[in-house]
């Protein structure tokens, strides 16, 4: 054989072997979670949801035959650790996407992920992350690589205010209803404040001055008494579960009659157990179509994910678990779009994958994950907000969450789904 032909043969052999070798190459993904820090009470179930879903995808063959190499890191809600871990991930593992967690890590990493072109799917639903170009009238930063599954905090509050207006009329309320925003003077509770108060004013509510209470549990009788004194009808609790519980109990003791509106991280089954009867009647947004135990075609897949999970097989999974599953599945399907027809799975292509579908529900999760729509100018995935009401009818101090839900002492009742207009002037705040 001539040298040229042997070289050609060697080259063909190399390509031939490299083909399947390429297919074995794992896709590196980063996963930040908080299992031990201040937000761990909601971080643990969400993180489990993401991890279990990704493990399930791997068991079923991965993405186009390639397994996901998921690198999980518990950063304890301390931004410096998240930043250091991010540097390690982009340097060594060369992650192509990251499942993030809260405000502190998401915001610290915006500039970095934009520069490195790594899609960041967070559990922080701040409206400031929804403007990819930064050109919306009230937006102040461009976040082209930030995505999240679910309605933004601002849109969720807008939906609850629209419901409150309808509820006021349905109850036969006289005059203008009074709305008040309650929360700490802190980025997380303040995220939807301006949006909520603006829409409330637009819809004819009398907007009372906001009432502040800290993010830590404490005695909030004073806030409840002023709430009663001001005659508020609808109060939005903007803090996380720990301090919301204190307010609910203090207001129950003080005999305050107010319709409380919760936020996604401020009310869940564990908070219902901790607050007991004080949490009865709180209306809050749920990111999935049903809660655990609900009836939907997609629940079969979710139950399969839960059974095979690395976390202890639990009898009951809180709302955050399902949201974590849907969040992970969005990323997975975007990767599948990128990998279709033998394409490279890179950050840019994953991002394009997010824009590829309309009314996107991950396959196999119908009825559980709500439809999302992302576009290059608008990262507001969901404009439909499902509202549920927490119903607590008895003593919650004995028995686990699973037992209480089974016995019916605690229930989550669907109230309604509000569809928001995709208004351009609402983008980014």
């Amino acid at each position, binding site marked *: 054989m001539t040298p040229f032909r042997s070289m050609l043969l060697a080259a063909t052999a190399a390509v031939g072997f490299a083909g399947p070798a390429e297919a074995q190459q794992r896709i590196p993904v980063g996963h930040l979670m908080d299992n031990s820090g201040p937000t761990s009470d909601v971080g*643990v179930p969400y993180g489990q949801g993401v991890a279990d879903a990704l493990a399930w995808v791997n068991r079923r063959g991965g993405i186009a035959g390639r397994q996901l190499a998921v690198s999980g890191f518990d950063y304890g809600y301390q931004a410096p650790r998240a930043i250091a871990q991010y540097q390690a991930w982009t340097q060594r593992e060369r992650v192509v996407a990251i499942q993030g967690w809260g405000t502190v890590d998401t915001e610290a990493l915006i500039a970095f992920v934009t520069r490195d072109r790594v899609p960041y799917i967070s559990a922080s639903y701040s409206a400031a992350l929804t403007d990819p170009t930064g050109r919306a009238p009230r937006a102040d930063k461009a976040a082209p690589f930030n995505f999240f599954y679910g309605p933004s905090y601002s849109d969720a509050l807008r939906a609850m205010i629209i419901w409150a207006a309808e509820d006021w009329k349905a109850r036969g309320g006289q005059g203008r209803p009074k709305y008040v925003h309650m929360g700490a003077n802190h980025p997380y509770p303040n995220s939807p404040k301006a949006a909520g108060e603006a829409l409330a004013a637009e819809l004819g509510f009398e907007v009372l001055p906001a009432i502040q209470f800290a993010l830590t549990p404490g005695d909030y*009788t*004073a806030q409840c008494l002023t709430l009663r*004194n001001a005659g508020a009808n609808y109060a939005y609790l903007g803090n996380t579960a720990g301090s919301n*519980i204190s307010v609910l109990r203090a207001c129950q003791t003080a005999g305050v009659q107010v319709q409380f509106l919760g936020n996604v991280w401020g009310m869940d089954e564990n908070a219902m157990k901790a607050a007991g009867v004080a949490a009865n009647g709180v209306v809050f947004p749920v990111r999935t179509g049903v809660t655990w135990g609900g009836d939907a075609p997609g629940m079969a897949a979710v139950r399969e994910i839960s059974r095979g999970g690395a976390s202890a097989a639990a009898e009951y999974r809180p709302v955050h678990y399902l949201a974590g599953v849907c969040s992970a599945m969005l990323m997975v399907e975007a990767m599948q779009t990128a990998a279709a027809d033998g394409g490279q799975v890179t950050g840019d292509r994953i991002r394009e994958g997010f824009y590829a579908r309309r009314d996107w529900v991950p396959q196999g999760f119908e009825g559980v994950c709500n439809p999302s729509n992302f576009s290059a100018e608008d990262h507001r995935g969901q404009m439909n907000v499902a509202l549920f009401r927490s119903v607590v009818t008895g003593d919650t101090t*004995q028995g686990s969450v699973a037992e209480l839900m089974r016995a019916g002492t605690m229930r989550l009742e669907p109230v309604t789904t509000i569809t928001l207009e995709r208004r351009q002037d609402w983008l980014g705040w």
Partner: protein
Amino acid sequence: MNWELLFQLTLNGLIVGTLYGVVAMSFVLIYKASQVVNFAQGEFLLVGAWVCWWLLTEHRVPFLWGFLVTLAFMTLFGILIQVVVLRPLIGEPVISVIMVTIGLSIFFQALMKWMFGVFAQPFPPIFETQVVNVMGLEVQSVYLMSLVISVAIMGGFAWFFTASKHGLAMRATAFDQQVAQSLGISVRQVFAMSWAISAVVSAVAGVVVGVVNGVSSALSFYGIKVFPAVILGGLDSILGAVLGGIIVGVLENVAHFFDSTLLNWGNMYQIAPFYVLVLILMIKPYGLFGTRTIERV
């Protein structure tokens, strides 16, 4: 001026303030006896709350017995901390000891989360009536319990420090360690006792907070609330600590009243104690009841 609301808020401040006073008392006790600033005070509350919760829910112990067992456990706990961690540091600069208590707080926060999980847990109902009406204000009965207990503790301390041998030994040690040792007082025992008593008192406060708010890891933030109370009252005065706590409680609530009815700034509840603290320190640098150290060359 909504006088009724102001009255209710002041009353609430007084009642809640006694709780702050209890926490402040436990802090001052340690400082007075061993000159240590205990940054882990909040974690003492947390440990007491979790242990009591565990006894009441996992083992269905009646409240009175569970509470007493918790107090006994906290006595041992306080002594253990003092012996294991703080005794090697006697004589070292105060700031190193402060850092060690900070290390302790990190350690116990993580340990409590590991042992009892990260979710907030409610306390089982303790009293027949959960809520009592006091002069028009609805108050949780457990706050009244804490009021009664704190008055009892104050009375107990008053007797202890003036009439009992151990109490006098503690005062002597706080005044001058060397002279106390020369009189035959075992300084080590005095330190251990002061930590044990402080742990017990913290546990009482912890249980009260747990009953009202549910037990969660964020309970330890009550330890930070104690600092303005302690400074207002003067660092080495137990009476001052209690009064400081009550002042902080009333201040928070009254400031909130003015804020919500007149000013509408929103943050006076959190920040007013700190502003007042700075003001008082400018006028009286040793707090209201603290001993003014006379400086000699």
